[in-house]
């Protein structure tokens, strides 16, 4: 989960302040004067200049470059849809689509599922603090660090040696980061190991917002265990689950750091995803026009995946 809430602004999860006051910047509130001296605009200028000058500019330029044959810093020509046509016929396309989809699905199912399980198991249980710390620890050490640790464990002097010593020879000869499609699954394991803790913490927050009277009433009616979880807790958690799933998809679609450290998308592009592919085409082969086209396609995926969520967030921010 790249940076949790930094890469993806998550308006939906951000309250409008300690007391949920409504924020509608343009609406005049009764009894208040509106201060609109021209100097007031100076307050928003730095933020506006930074975001428009760097990010909006970049979006426009990336889209433009995707229609050119740009190769680095020299001049380039407009070539229309040629990059997109080449992308469609690129033999690497199917591998990248497959891996990107696998990453997105796995990152929803594994860390979110395990995080929820851990949160439900640990809440109100003795020793919660220590288990919570243990599960959160990998998130605290970061993606690159996680990648290096697991590269070591999946390497030739890593867990294969342990499996050999335990006499499990079928696992001792596995090349975790070289065999296809195992290399992608190995990295998903590493990534899950890292992210579960933060999803668990978010589910703790979600569980804490459930009114205890509701669960009490349900248990008086005889609901317990799985039934209580399935029919009361899980539905009450839906808003939080939705947020976590949305963040997970968006982050998984643009996962780069861990893959770059562990395999660089290799061997022979077999574990590449769209995010890695864009970087590789643009900065290793300097086919920036082509790299830009891949980035645009990735953006379309990301926006499609998050559109429902973004609309909901927008409504909340506006409310």
């Amino acid at each position, binding site marked *: 989960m790249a*940076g*949790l*809430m*930094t890469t993806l*602004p998550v*308006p939906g*999860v*951000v*309250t*409008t*302040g300690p007391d949920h*006051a409504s*924020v509608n*910047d*343009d609406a005049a509130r009764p009894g208040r004067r509106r201060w*609109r001296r021209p100097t007031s*605009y100076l*307050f928003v200028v730095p*933020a*506006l200049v930074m975001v*428009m000058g*760097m*990010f909006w*500019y*970049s979006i426009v*330029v*990336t889209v433009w*470059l995707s229609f050119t044959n740009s190769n680095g810093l020299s001049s380039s020509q407009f070539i229309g849809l040629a990059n997109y046509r080449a992308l469609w016929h690129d033999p690497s396309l199917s591998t990248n689509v497959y891996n990107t989809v696998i990453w997105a699905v796995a990152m929803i199912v594994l860390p979110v599922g395990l995080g929820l399980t851990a949160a439900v198991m*640990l809440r109100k*249980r003795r020793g919660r603090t220590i*288990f919570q710390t243990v599960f959160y*620890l990998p998130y605290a*050490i*970061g993606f*690159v*660090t996680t990648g*290096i*640790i697991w*590269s*070591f464990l999946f*390497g030739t*002097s*890593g867990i294969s040696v*342990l499996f050999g*010593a335990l006499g499990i020879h079928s696992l001792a000869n596995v090349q975790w980061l070289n065999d296809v499609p195992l290399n992608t699954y190995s990295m998903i394991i590493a990534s899950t190991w890292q992210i579960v803790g933060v999803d668990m*913490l*978010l589910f703790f*927050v979600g569980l804490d917002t459930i009114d205890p009277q509701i669960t009490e009433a349900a248990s008086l009616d005889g609901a317990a265990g799985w039934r209580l979880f399935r029919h009361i807790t899980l539905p009450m958690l839906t*808003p939080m689950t939705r*947020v976590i799933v949305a963040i997970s998809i968006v982050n998984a*679609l643009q996962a780069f*750091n861990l893959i*770059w450290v562990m395999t660089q998308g290799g061997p022979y592009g077999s574990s590449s995803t*769209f*995010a890695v592919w*864009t970087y590789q085409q*643009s900065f290793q082969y300097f086919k*920036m026009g082509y790299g830009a086209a891949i980035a645009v396609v990735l953006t379309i995926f*990301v*926006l499609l995946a998050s559109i429902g969520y973004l609309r909901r967030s927008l409504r909340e921010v506006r409310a």
Partner: protein
Amino acid sequence: MKPATIKQVVIYGILIIAALLWVLPIWWSVINASKSASDFFAHPFYAIPREFNLLSNIRSAWDSAGLGTGFINSIIYGVVGAAASIAIASLAAYGIVVLRIRGGFTIFMIIYSGTVFPLQMYIIPLFRMYNSIHIYNTRWGLLLFYTAISVPFCTLVLRGFYSTVPNEYRESAMVEGASEVRILRSIYVPLSVSAALVLFLFQFTWIWNDLLFGIVLSSSPSVHPVMASLSSLMGLYGGSSLPVELSGTLIAASPMLVLFFTLRRFFTQGLSLVVRR
């Protein structure tokens, strides 16, 4: 045993096995970071180190591939970048929500939507822009990027906080002749200090963990952020000296671990403050 007791035993059993799976990779990293190269090659990775070599490994890692420089760079990027973005976002939030400038909501949407897009949309144009205005491979360039990328989220959170401050505070300060900047500094900033600290923590963490923009916007070890140095340390040895690489990961992880253990309670509180639904 009663069924309830059996259930407890099973649940704790599962939790302990899971906890072992989560702790073992870290444990193995620490013990192998402590081994000498010959010890590492002579014995399996799970063996306890014959001699304690951690400090000399850490020293080699710190000196190789500019990891020490990267560490210091990232401290600067993280601290200055996070603080600057919070300052810029405070101004913007104040303008939008307190001064209520015309078109404030649109301006807010423009600021905030800059990061809805995947980061891959920014790498190529920023690389080219940085080259053409000669800030590629400079500390200022990276600082500018890290500040800018943090602004939208900070604006989002601070805007929410400022909107809850009663306008009467500001009005009475105005009666006493305080300027807008002074009102922001002495009323709004102190009231939002908890939110600002949470933001600082989040943004510092993000900047500290960034690899992508470190390798896109800089190329030399003297400018690289820590994660870029760490990944080139890996390429440098090509697996030939894992103990040194692993002690490099300890160096890179240490500030995050310190922050986490000192501010843990604060972090979980912060999470529930910022992430509430």
